């Protein structure tokens, strides 16, 4: 097939996108990398001074950053795994029933469509210790005698933000996996049945291998988004109580906008991207090699 060649000056097609991207995306990346090697803060009178690797040396010993990284990792791993299991269970269930598929999908899509900040407000109120619906239910049914301050203790606040994230994004995983399940030809299942295989054999030899690329996309998207989580935590707990739910994005944001330490904020951002890239690369390698082994 002949490939259609474009006439000279065809870079003009890229020009608007290139202009917007260089101003809002590429220049800021460069600026952040440069700033991460500089001191620029209230202390320097907002003058930029070369800092070498000072900022990165500080990150190595910054226990608040280490704590926020740990919080982010726990949040990412627990919420993405929970979302995956729930999304998969729902997708398989919806595939196995007849009819009502669009209605179910529309209901389940609503939490995903809501703004995260609004979701956070909504759940903060459901979890409110005095007026919240959850405590009212638990007290009424006798599970607990005293109201639980869900957002008041470190462990329960962590559970609360994870549960809220799962509520909001399990539907995303569900939608992706449902599309994957609908792509599987029915006769493959019939073949397993003829060979005398049961439900497990169908899942293991047909459903799971076919779902791999869909699972990969869902997990990759979700893990990267969860690692960057900001709005949910900012609105629900503000990173509290006592910094227990402070994620790397929240800490970086505070360093920039409250402590006005731009050099260190940039170094935190660079480090976050480096860790995220390493983790995403690792996940990619692990999932792709596993995917290839399946066949």
């Amino acid at each position, binding site marked *: 097939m*002949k*490939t*259609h060649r*474009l006439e000279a000056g*065809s870079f003009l*097609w*890229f020009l*608007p*996108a*290139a202009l*917007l*991207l260089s*101003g*809002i*995306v590429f220049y800021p*990346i460069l600026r*952040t990398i440069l700033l991460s090697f500089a001191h620029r803060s209230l202390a320097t009178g907002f003058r930029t001074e070369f800092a070498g690797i000072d900022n990165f040396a500080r990150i190595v010993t910054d226990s608040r950053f280490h704590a926020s990284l740990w919080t982010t990792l726990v949040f990412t791993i627990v919420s993405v795994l929970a979302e995956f299991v*729930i999304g998969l*269970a729902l997708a398989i*269930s919806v595939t*196995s029933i007849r009819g009502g598929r669009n209605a*179910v999908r*529309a*209901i*389940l*899509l*609503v*939490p995903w*469509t*809501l*703004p995260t*900040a*609004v979701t956070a*407000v*909504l*759940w903060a*109120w459901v979890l409110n210790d005095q*007026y919240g*619906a959850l405590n*009212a239910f638990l007290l009424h049914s006798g599970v607990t005698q005293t109201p639980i301050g869900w957002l008041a203790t470190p462990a329960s606040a962590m559970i609360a933000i994870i549960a809220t994230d799962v*509520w909001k994004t399990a539907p995303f995983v569900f*939608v*992706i996996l449902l*599309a994957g399940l609908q792509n599987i030809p029915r006769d493959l299942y019939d073949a397993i049945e003829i060979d005398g295989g049961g439900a497990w054999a169908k899942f293991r030899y047909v459903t799971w291998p076919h779902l791999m*690329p869909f699972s*990969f*996309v869902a997990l990759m998207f979700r893990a990267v988004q969860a*690692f*960057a989580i*900001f*709005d949910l935590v900012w*609105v629900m707990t503000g990173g509290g109580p006592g910094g227990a739910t402070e994620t*790397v994005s929240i800490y970086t944001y505070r360093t*920039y*906008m409250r402590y006005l330490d731009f050099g260190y*904020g*940039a170094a935190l*951002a660079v480090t*976050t991207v480096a860790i*995220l890239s390493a983790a995403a690369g690792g996940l990619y390698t692990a999932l792709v090699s596993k995917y290839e082994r399946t066949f």
Partner: protein
Amino acid sequence: MSGLSRLLIVVGCILAAAPLVLHLMSSVKSTSELNLSPPTLFPHEVTLSNYQALFTKRPFLRYCINSLTVSTLSSLICVAVASLAAYRLARGRGRWRSAIRLSLLVVAFFPPIVYVFPDYEIIQALGLVNHLWGLILPYSALNIPFAIWLLTGSFQQIPLDLEEAAEIDGLTRFQMFRMIVLPLVTPALITAGILVFIFAWNEFMFALTFITIESQKTVTQGVATLSGAFAEEIPYGLIAAGVIASAVPLIIVVIVFQRWIIAGLTAGAVKQ
């Protein structure tokens, strides 16, 4: 098996809808009823006073107009700009093409925290802090990689013969793009447009940072700060009304555009 499936679906749907239903009921309760502890489930009497307060004591209508303006313009600009670049990518060849696609994919996965401060500097330099264009520009730009990625695939599916025929008819490249190619990818344009609209509508971090005055706030920021303005008592009725009022437009979008939203979300997985 089928019984278990039904049970899971019913539980899933109830859990998805319950918090919103609870807020809907709270939003029509009176202040005195909301202050009862333990709370009531169904409202004793229905009142619209919370919604009235939302639109009179707080500039909620202004928030909605701002969000609508920002999301619509961001979506239009992003899709227009991305469709030009995506078409060029789909029809070009060579090593640079995969390099561009890869770099777009990489920056699309960068956490927004990377951009928020340097973008703030730029928006400030442009004099656009507390201005809706200060959000429209970043929202348009940050969604370009996603939109290009979505649209390139659609352009590649259009047969070249069509364009060769048009060329013989004496159309310029741009005329051909506008009159023949674009109409063929309308579904993809709608999908990209809706998703960018939702992303812009839902964005919080940039709005929080770039907008500090009430009259320019968007809905997400407005709802998130509803409790802040009344230090003496937390206005639960107002918050519930705010949550419901901000959810309703999105629920309508989901119901009307479900097919397009699903198509956009699953495009990446299906093409692999």
